[in-house]
C-alpha cells in the first residue's frame, strides 16, 4: 500500500470511557468483522480482560477503509491498555502511531487518565482527534465536554467529533476524520530496515510473537534479521497482520504495523522497544526505544500448600513470557515458608497476576501486603535496596531511609477540593498547582510518597468524592523520610510476613489499627492468642484473640452419623485454606489486612 494511504492510530481514553466498544464499532463499520461474528470487546482476548472489562495487553489490527472520496485506506488500529498501571504500554503503542483518538465519555468529562494520555500523545508528536463518546446517554453533556477538550488541546470545540460507540452515531464522520486529519507515516521505504518492536507475547504453539511497526525499509519472510539492542540474529519465519484474525502477508512495508514470528521461545531475546534491522544491510542508528518499566510495588506470593512451590515457580516463569514487567525472586519467610518476592507495576497489575496464577495455574496463594522499594543507608556508609520490610537493617545500623515519591494528578469536581486536600495531607502529600478545566472541574497536582498511594489511596479518593475524582501518577524521585518498621507478633512470635514500613508518626496509629483488624480477621483458636504490634523491642499495641469456648453442635439428628461426619470433613477442608503460623490458623485475608485498615 502506498504510504500516503496508511493511517496508524491509537484510541486513548480513561478507563470505561468506551475504547474497546469504539474499536468494535470501527471493525464492524469497515466490514473487518461481520455483525454475526461480533462479540463485544473483540480485542480484549484474555478471559480476565473480558471479565473485568479492562484491556491489559496492546493489540494491533488492520482495517481496510473505503473513504467517501472512493480511495481505499489501510488503517492500523493499535489498542492500548486503559489503566494507570499499564500507562507505559500506552506510551509504547503511541510510538507506533502518527495519530490518536482521544476519547472522552460525554457524561463524565475529562478524567485523570484522559489528561495523562493526552500529554503522552502530545509529547510523542501525535496528531490528536478529540472525540466525545456516549452521546446517546441522557446524562451526556457533549458541549461542555467538547469545550474541556478544546481547552486542553488548544483547539476549537468544533473540531471535537461526537459519537456513540454503542449505537454507531458519528462513526462514519469519525472514519472520515481519521483519513483526513491524521498524517500518513513518513518513513523512507528505500532506507535500511528499521522496525520498532512495540509489544511481544508468547504463544504456546508459535513461540514469541512480536508486534512491529516498520518505520523505514521493508521486512519480509525469510529475511535474516538482527535485533539491535540484544545483537540477536534471527530469521523472520512469518510476517502478517491481524484483521482481527491472524493473516500472513509475507511482508510489512515502511509505515505498516503487523506481527513477526521468529520461532524464538525465549522472550528475553526480543525486547520490547528494540529495533529490528537486516543482518546484511543494517541501519546505522536504532529508533528511539523506551525504558523497560520498573516495578513499583512488591509483594510476597506464597503457596498455601508448601508442596506447590515448584509449581508456583513454573507458573511465574510462564506468565513472564507474556509480561516482561513482572519480576520475581525466591524469598523465604519464617511464617509462610518458601515463596517469591514479586515486583509489579501497580496494584491492579499485582491483582491480575495473582488472579491469573490462581485461575490459570490452579494455585492457592497467600499474598503479603504490598510494599514499595526503599533505599536504606547503613551507618557504615553502605546502601541497600529493600523490597521486603523484613530486610530492613536494624535501627542501630540504619543511618537513613529513602522512599519513592510520585507526581499525582487528580481531577475532581471543584466542590471536593477540600476533601481531596485533606486526604492528600493525611497521606503526607505536598500540594502542587491547581488548574480549572472548567468552572466545575479542577485538575490538582501533588507530590506524595508512593507507599501511601499503594495502600488505600485510590479507594479513599473514590469514596470521599462519591466516585467523581480520578487519579493518575508517575514516578518522581526518592526522598529521605522518617520511617520505621512495625512488626506484628502472634502468640509472642514475630510474623515476618506482617511487617510493614510506615512513617514514624503513623506507627502507633497503624500498629493499633492493624492489631485490631487482625483480632477481627483471625478466628478464635483453641487457646488465647495475643496479637501485638512492636517497633523494635517496644510493644506499641496489644489485643487478645480469646480462645474459642464452644465448637460443637449437639445435633446428630436421628443418628445421621454420615451427614455429621461429612459436615465436619467439609469444615476441616475449609480450614485448609488457612495458613498455619506457628500453631495459629491465619486466614489469607489477614496477610493483606494492612490494606483494609483505613485511616482510623
Amino acid at each position, binding site marked *: 500500500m502506498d504510504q500516503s494511504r496508511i493511517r496508524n492510530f491509537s484510541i486513548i481514553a480513561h478507563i470505561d470511557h468506551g475504547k474497546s466498544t469504539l474499536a468494535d464499532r470501527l471493525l464492524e463499520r469497515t466490514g473487518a468483522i461481520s455483525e454475526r461474528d461480533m462479540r463485544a470487546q473483540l480485542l480484549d482476548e484474555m478471559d480476565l480482560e473480558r471479565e473485568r472489562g479492562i484491556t491489559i495487553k496492546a493489540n494491533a489490527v488492520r482495517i481496510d477503509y473505503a473513504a467517501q472520496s472512493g480511495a481505499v485506506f489501510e488503517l492500523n488500529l493499535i489498542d492500548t491498555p486503559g489503566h494507570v498501571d499499564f500507562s507505559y504500554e500506552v506510551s509504547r503503542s503511541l510510538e507506533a502511531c502518527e495519530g490518536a483518538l482521544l476519547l472522552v465519555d460525554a457524561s463524565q468529562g475529562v478524567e485523570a487518565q484522559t489528561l495523562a494520555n493526552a500529554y503522552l500523545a502530545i509529547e510523542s508528536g501525535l496528531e490528536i482527534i478529540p472525540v466525545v463518546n456516549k452521546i446517546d446517554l441522557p446524562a451526556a453533556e457533549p458541549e461542555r465536554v467538547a469545550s474541556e477538550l478544546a481547552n486542553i488541546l488548544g483547539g476549537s470545540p468544533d473540531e471535537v467529533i461526537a459519537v456513540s460507540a454503542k449505537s454507531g452515531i458519528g462513526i462514519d464522520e469519525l472514519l472520515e476524520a481519521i483519513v483526513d486529519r491524521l498524517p500518513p507515516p513518513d518513513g523512507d521505504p528505500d532506507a535500511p530496515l528499521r522496525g520498532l518492536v512495540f509489544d511481544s507475547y508468547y504463544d504456546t504453539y508459535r513461540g514469541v510473537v512480536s508486534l512491529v511497526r516498520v518505520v523505514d525499509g521493508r521486512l519480509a519472510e525469510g529475511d535474516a534479521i538482527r535485533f539491535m539492542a540484544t545483537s540477536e540474529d534471527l530469521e523472520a519465519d512469518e510476517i502478517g497482520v491481524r484483521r482481527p484474525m491472524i493473516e500472513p502477508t509475507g511482508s510489512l512495508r515502511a509505515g505498516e504495523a503487523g506481527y513477526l514470528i521468529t520461532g524464538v521461545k525465549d522472550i528475553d531475546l526480543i525486547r520490547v522497544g528494540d529495533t529490528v534491522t537486516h543482518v546484511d544491510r543494517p541501519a546505522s542508528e536504532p529508533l528511539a526505544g523506551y525504558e523497560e518499566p520498573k516495578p513499583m510495588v512488591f509483594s510476597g506470593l506464597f503457596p498455601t500448600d508448601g508442596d506447590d512451590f515448584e509449581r508456583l515457580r513454573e507458573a511465574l516463569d510462564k506468565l513472564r513470557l507474556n509480561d516482561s514487567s513482572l519480576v520475581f525472586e525466591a524469598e523465604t519467610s519464617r511464617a509462610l515458608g518458601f515463596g517469591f518476592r514479586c515486583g509489579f507495576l501497580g496494584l491492579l497489575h499485582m491483582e491480575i497476576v495473582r488472579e491469573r496464577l490462581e485461575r490459570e495455574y490452579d494455585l492457592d496463594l497467600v499474598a503479603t501486603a504490598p510494599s514499595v522499594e526503599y533505599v536504606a543507608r547503613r551507618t557504615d556508609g553502605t546502601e541497600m535496596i529493600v523490597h521486603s520490610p523484613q530486610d530492613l537493617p536494624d535501627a542501630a545500623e540504619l543511618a537513613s531511609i529513602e522512599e519513592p515519591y510520585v507526581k499525582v494528578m487528580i481531577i475532581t469536581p471543584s466542590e471536593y477540593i477540600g476533601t481531596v486536600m485533606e486526604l492528600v495531607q493525611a497521606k503526607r502529600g505536598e500540594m502542587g498547582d491547581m488548574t480549572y478545566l472548567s468552572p466545575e472541574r479542577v485538575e490538582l497536582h501533588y507530590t506524595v510518597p508512593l507507599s501511601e498511594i499503594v495502600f488505600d489511596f485510590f479507594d479513599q479518593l473514590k469514596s470521599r468524592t462519591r466516585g467523581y475524582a480520578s487519579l493518575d501518577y508517575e514516578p518522581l524521585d526518592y526522598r529521605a523520610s522518617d520511617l520505621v518498621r512495625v512488626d506484628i507478633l502472634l502468640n509472642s512470635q514475630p510474623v515476618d510476613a506482617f511487617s510493614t514500613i510506615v512513617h514514624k508518626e503513623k506507627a502507633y496509629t497503624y500498629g493499633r489499627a492493624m492489631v485490631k483488624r487482625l483480632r477481627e480477621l483471625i478466628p478464635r483458636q483453641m487457646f488465647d492468642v495475643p496479637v501485638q504490634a512492636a517497633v523494635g523491642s517496644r510493644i506499641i499495641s496489644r489485643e487478645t484473640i480469646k480462645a474459642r469456648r464452644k465448637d460443637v453442635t*449437639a445435633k446428630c439428628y*436421628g443418628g445421621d452419623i454420615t451427614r455429621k461426619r461429612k459436615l465436619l470433613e467439609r469444615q476441616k477442608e475449609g480450614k485448609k485454606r488457612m495458613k498455619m503460623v506457628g500453631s495459629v490458623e491465619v486466614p489469607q485475608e489477614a496477610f493483606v489486612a494492612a490494606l483494609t485498615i483505613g485511616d482510623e
Partner: protein
Amino acid sequence: MSDPGHLGLQPDDPALVEHARTWRSAYVHIPFCRRRCPYCDFAIVDESQREVSQTERYVDAVVAEIGLVEQSMVLDAVNFGGGTPTRVSVAGLARIVESLSDRFGLADEAEISLEGNPEDLDEDVLASLVGAGFNRLSLGVQSLDDDVLERLGRVHTASDAEAVVVAAREAGFRSVSVDLIFGHPSESDESWRRTVERTLAMEPDHVSTYALTVEAGTALAREIATGAPEPDDDVQASRYELFCDAASDAGIVRYEVSNHAAHGHHCRYNLGTWANADYLGFGMAAHDHVDGERSRNVQRLDHYLDLVAQGVRPRAATESLSSHDEERDGLMLGLRLAAGVPLEGLAAVFAASPIGVALLDAGVLSVDGGQLRADPMRSDLAIREALSVSDPDC
C-alpha cells in the same frame, strides 16, 4: 430392681460404653408436628399446613417396613423420635411396638422410649402409653421460663411441663427425661439459672441439654438475617457449664455432650448410638447402622409411603463401612462420650499426632485412666481433627 441396662455402672463409665456396643436398638421416626418450631429444620410434616392427618397410614407403612427387614436381632431398646411421636395415637404407637416385638423380639426389660410434648400428654394418654409397654419418656420441656417458651414457639407453659413430669412418674414410667434448649437470645443468665434450678428440683432421671443452633432456612435464621440477635457461643458455653455443675451436684452426670442421667437412667438407645452399636431405623428420613452399613431413608412422606407400598425398603442412600471406617466412626462418636474412647488403635495414633498433641496441650483433649476424652463444648473441633488424621488418603 434388676436392670440389665446399667449393670450397676455409672452412665459415664467406660465399662458401660463397652457393654453398650453390644446393644441392639430400633429407632422409629414419627415425622408429625402440630406446627414447625421456628428453629427446627428436622424432617417433619407440619400438620398446620395439611388438611388430613396421615398418621394412621403412616403407622401402617412403618409396620410394613418392619416386615421388609432381613436381619434378625433381639432389641434392647426401642426409641420413638421425631417430629412428635405423641401426634400419633397411642394405639398406633402400640402397633409399631408390637410388630417390632413380633419381628425381632424384645429383651427382658427392654427400654421402650418416646419423645413427647407436654401439650399432647395428660393422665389418660400417659397411662395408655405405659399400658402399651412404654417405660421411658423424653419430654420436650425446653425451658421453664414462659417468655422463652413463647420465643421458642412452644405452646405449653412451664407449669404444664412440670405437671406432666409428675404425672408421667405416677403413671409408671421408669425414666423421665427433661429435654432443654438453652441459649436463645431472649434467655437471660437469670432465666437459665431458674430453669436449671426448677429442673433439678423435679429430680428428673435424665436431662438432655441442647444449645440452640441456627439452621439455614428456618424462621429463626430469617429473623437473624434481618437483624435479630444471634445466639452467642460464649454465653452458651457458660450456660452449659452452669448446668453441668449444678446437675452433677444433684447426682446427675453427663455421659454424652447433650445427655445427663442419674445412676441407672442413661438412655440405652442413645448410649448405644454413641458407642457405635448397631441400630435399625424405620420411618421417613430414619437412619440406621446395621452390619457395617449406614443407611438413610427417603426424606419425603409421599415417596416413603409409595416405596413401602411397593414392598421396597425406602432407602435414599447406603454407605458401606470398612473396618477402618468403623473404627474411625467409633472414635468420632466416642469423643462425644464422657467416658471417651480407649487410648488404643486409631485413638492412640490421633493422640500422638502433632495436632493431637496440640489439642491435649490446649485441653481440648485429655487422657485419663487409659481413656481419651474431648472437652464436650469443643468436641467438634476434636472430631474434625480426628477425622483428618484418620483419613487414609492423607
